[in-house]
């Protein structure tokens, strides 16, 4: 019951977050969108002449940070209504960067209208989704960075403890990541105290772990007993410290910090659950005596890590 209430609250917060982001998604005039990583689509808002549009020399494309380095346009295609054009490039674009397209002497029905500038950038939602997917699957903290293995092997014997640990861990991770962002932005950076960040982050994590420990002891004594010493060991987990530190290094904002922590937490929960599924089956398998217990668990984790390599290079946008 408690867990379902928690899930409802979380999803409600997510919907609120998405609603807040909606204005960011709707962009004004003079923008374009990426077509995979080899094309840019821009829309002129009125029909343009095909002869003008077909000439790649009419378009100057460059990254906003390097206006001097022009990127060669390979070909231009117009859509049947002649309103939007797709520029194709030989070399793949850097989707994390912001691009500018200068269209010179736009010609419509034989008349020259003038120049116009387009900026092409991934929207905030796409960036956040990329962060979420990256932390969850592509560079899963357990299987590709090999962090947090202590809890990972300690709690993955039974499915129900794995799920409980996953939810607890994600909660602590999100709360502490957002709190650490606030402390870093409003205290550590303004007072030039960023050399203190590791100790401050660990302190923040410890506060939330203590709070979860107190609450869980009352609310779910069964899970509390099953998690045992590993609940307190969340404090010293590598992932829970790595997430705020990477947020600080990457200069993530509050939403990005939240998303990254959510992705890392869910990724860890997925890893725990998968491992628990296999280890429950391993209980009834005939394992060679020298491999019983932890050694075979390490081998299984290695196989999972190999499987998770399949996610590398995954991109939805």
């Amino acid at each position, binding site marked *: 019951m408690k867990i379902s209430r928690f899930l409802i609250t979380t999803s409600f917060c997510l919907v609120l977050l998405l609603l807040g982001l909606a204005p960011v998604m709707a962009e004004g005039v003079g923008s374009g969108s990426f077509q995979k990583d080899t094309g840019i689509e821009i829309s002129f808002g009125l029909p343009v002449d095909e002869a003008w549009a077909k000439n790649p020399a009419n378009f100057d494309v460059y990254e906003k940070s390097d206006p001097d380095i022009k990127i060669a346009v390979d070909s231009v295609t117009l859509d049947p209504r002649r309103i939007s054009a797709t520029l194709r490039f030989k070399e793949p674009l850097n989707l994390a960067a912001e691009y500018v397209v200068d269209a010179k002497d736009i010609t419509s029905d034989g008349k020259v209208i003038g120049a116009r500038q387009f900026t092409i950038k991934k929207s905030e939602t796409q960036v956040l989704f990329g962060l979420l997917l990256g932390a969850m699957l592509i560079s899963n903290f357990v299987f590709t960075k090999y962090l947090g293995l202590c809890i990972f092997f300690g709690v993955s014997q039974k499915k129900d403890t794995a799920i409980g640990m996953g939810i607890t861990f994600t909660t602590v991770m999100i709360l502490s990541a957002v709190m650490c962002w606030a402390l870093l932005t409003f*205290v550590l950076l303004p*007072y030039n*105290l960023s050399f203190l960040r590791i100790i*401050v982050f660990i302190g923040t994590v410890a506060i939330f772990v203590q*709070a979860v420990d*107190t609450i869980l002891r009352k609310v779910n004594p069964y899970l509390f007993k099953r998690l045992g010493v590993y609940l307190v060991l969340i404090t010293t987990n590598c992932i829970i410290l790595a997430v705020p530190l990477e947020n600080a290094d990457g200069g993530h904002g509050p939403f990005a910090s939240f998303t990254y922590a959510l992705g890392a937490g869910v990724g860890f929960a997925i890893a725990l659950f998968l491992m628990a599924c296999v280890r429950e089956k391993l209980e009834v398998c005939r394992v060679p005596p020298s491999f019983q217990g932890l050694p075979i668990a390490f081998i299984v984790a290695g196989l999972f890590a190999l499987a998770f390599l399949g996610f590398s290079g995954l991109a939805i946008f």
Partner: protein
Amino acid sequence: METVWTTALAGLIVFAAFGLICGLALAYAAQRFAVKVDPKIEAVRACLPGAN
């Protein structure tokens, strides 16, 4: 030297305040979610030798 002192002092004050607030919140939570433990259990355990 002046700036070093102001920096150190600011950090000290902010984190002392932060720690105090969180400590009070945790103390309140501990009271609110207190689990009743029978004091007799502890008393009996204290009387036992505790060898195992």
